[in-house]
């Protein structure tokens, strides 16, 4: 049965690595929900958090095919992990909207980062589900622009 899995991939931090990994997903028809890559504590190593939708057979293929890439050192399928997503969002079309949005933001502990006459930009970090419900509440006010980081995750000890 298909479900969402979060993979943590340790790879060489060079300029082709993201292309190699995303190319592998596209040519082998693996579904990628989000991908997030950044340098780690070791500058020559980057860590990618990849969210995939797959059944167990495909998940196994994804892991094994990734491990065949020379630049990939480790692939972990995360079970017990802290998952976080970051969002920047601008919403609201009137001053009244803006006040209501601030109320919702306070409930979610979202932080205003830029305030316009009618709209407001907020940032929020949290579990993906929390981000989703926050977005649902903001939708009626009109979402002008938004960007989601995709999931980043680290396993618990």
């Amino acid at each position, binding site marked *: 049965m298909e479900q969402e899995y979060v993979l943590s991939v340790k790879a060489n931090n060079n300029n*082709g690595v993201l*292309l*190699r990994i995303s*190319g592998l997903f596209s*040519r082998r028809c693996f579904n990628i929900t989000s991908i997030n890559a950044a340098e780690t504590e070791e500058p020559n190593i980057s860590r990618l958090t990849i969210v995939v939708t797959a059944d167990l*057979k495909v998940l*196994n*293929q994804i892991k*094994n*095919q990734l*491990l*065949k*890439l*020379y*630049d990939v050192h480790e692939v972990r399928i995360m079970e017990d992990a802290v998952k976080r997503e970051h969002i920047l969002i601008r919403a609201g079309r009137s001053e009244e909207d803006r006040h209501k949005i601030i109320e919702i933001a306070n409930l979610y502990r979202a932080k205003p980062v830029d305030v316009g006459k009618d709209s407001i930009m907020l940032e929020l970090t949290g579990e993906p589900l929390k981000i989703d419900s926050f977005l649902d509440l903001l939708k009626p006010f009109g979402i002008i622009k938004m960007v989601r980081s995709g999931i980043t995750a680290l396993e618990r000890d």
Partner: protein
Amino acid sequence: MILSGSDIIVECLLEEGADTVFGYPGGAVLNIYDSLYKYSDKIRHIITSHEQGACHAADGFARATGKTGVVIATSGPGATNLTTGLATAYMDSIPLVAITGNVSCNLLGLDSFQEVDITGVTMPITKHNFIVKNIKDLALTLKLAFKIAGSGRKGPVLVDIPKDITAAEIEYTPLGKSEPERFDDISEKEIEEAAKLIAQCERPYIYAGGGVISSDAEKELARLAELCDAPVSCSLMGQGAFNQLDRRYIGMLGMHGTVKAAAALNSCDLFIGVGTRFSDRVIGDPNVFGKNAKIIHIDIDPAEFNKNVEVYTTVMGDVKTALSRLCDKISQKKNAWTDEIIAKDFGEPVLKGTEAFPVTPEAVIRKLDELTGGEAVISTEVGQNQMWAAQYYRFKNARSFVSSGGLGTMGFGLGASIGAKVGCPEKTVVNIAGDGSFAMNLNELITAYAHNIPIIEMVINNNVLGMVRQWQRLFYNKHFSQTTLDNRHIDYVKLGEAFGIETFVIEKNEDIEPVLKKALEISKSKPCMIEVKIDRDINVLPMIPAGKPVVDPITEIDLEA
């Protein structure tokens, strides 16, 4: 000592034992060719007619010798001309190192003359690739390229080197030959599980792929077959992994495998797949394949486990080591079923000629097999010629069948035969071609002549693209769309003559033996060509239609239907 980048390239090649390279010069590799000029007493360079031919030659060299093949091409079109050859090698896990020149670093990314992002282009068709932008990284990168190409599941690696890097100079200290990474650490639990299944089974059947050849495991495979008392089939890539004169050999398995092999597949209770990736051309319908048996899959690449078929158990690691450890754990078996399968006549089809074209490829290839004692290296193009070569030549040794299995590259064989002959000058090398494939890359006859590489080019001429025609007959209402080549009136004797290649024609059964004998004699000193005229409707049989279960293969095609 202070060396230029291009000298370092040649030094590294020599350290890796690559004393023969194939390639084609050009602007971005001028420095490299200047070094090859300087080192010409130490390294042999063979210029082909086309970079594609050079890549196939390096591939054929690698397949026939087991060494890593090397090809050099210039930037832009030189590099893109390698792509079919690289993809061919990648699909069949053949170790190659391709060195391409590129424009100087300051011109990269500016759409400069003959610039192409070849690392981007070849990412999906190489095991790995590099672009070297700092001369300090050059030697190490080349070493790494050889190491990656020859480690684990082998494959092609491309190193792109901008022109200024080949010109720059740096202090160079030899790093020594790279050592491939070994995969001998095999789980004892997996070996024991496999040994247990073998002990319990009554009808074991061994299916060997190209991985057996890649890991030099023929002896271990033979030992396993004997201990298990199992019949053996080889995949197309596995041809030669098992001595086909051995009584246990029951023919190829798959789309054009024997009826006997299909019967063994369906009646065995244990299917042992060794060094194979269960290609769709073998398994047919994955939901039905081997359903009456437990499947053991032994391979170096865990990504192949359960990829195309679900297997019962796996053994991961180098096939040679795995088989050797497995053999130590099993005791001699004796299975009545094996004797039955071997003895039973399954009515394998025999090819028939016509009045106008009495000669069949079966008769020619069987005679070639007889005259060469099964000791020749046979390369092939792709299509009917390839299947006939695999079906009728009885391969005794590993590395004696050179064919594009995975990618199915028409135009592969001639270049590959040249590489194979350069690698194994003491062996007879015959490229079995069709007229379609021949026309694709016949330019490499020039290479065979120019370097006096004495291969035999055998063109089985039916004036059609026979394999496609066969499918059109069976599945497309005999709409022979674009596969009839009647408008071509090629005089092969004159064509050969123009290239300086003596050419003979086989059109009657009485021609077969004398022409083959003459060609074999000539090929002791120079290349030659044979045209074999056959009927256009000789089909490759048996046949399992694509995606269908490997049961009851088609053994006869009614031409009147």
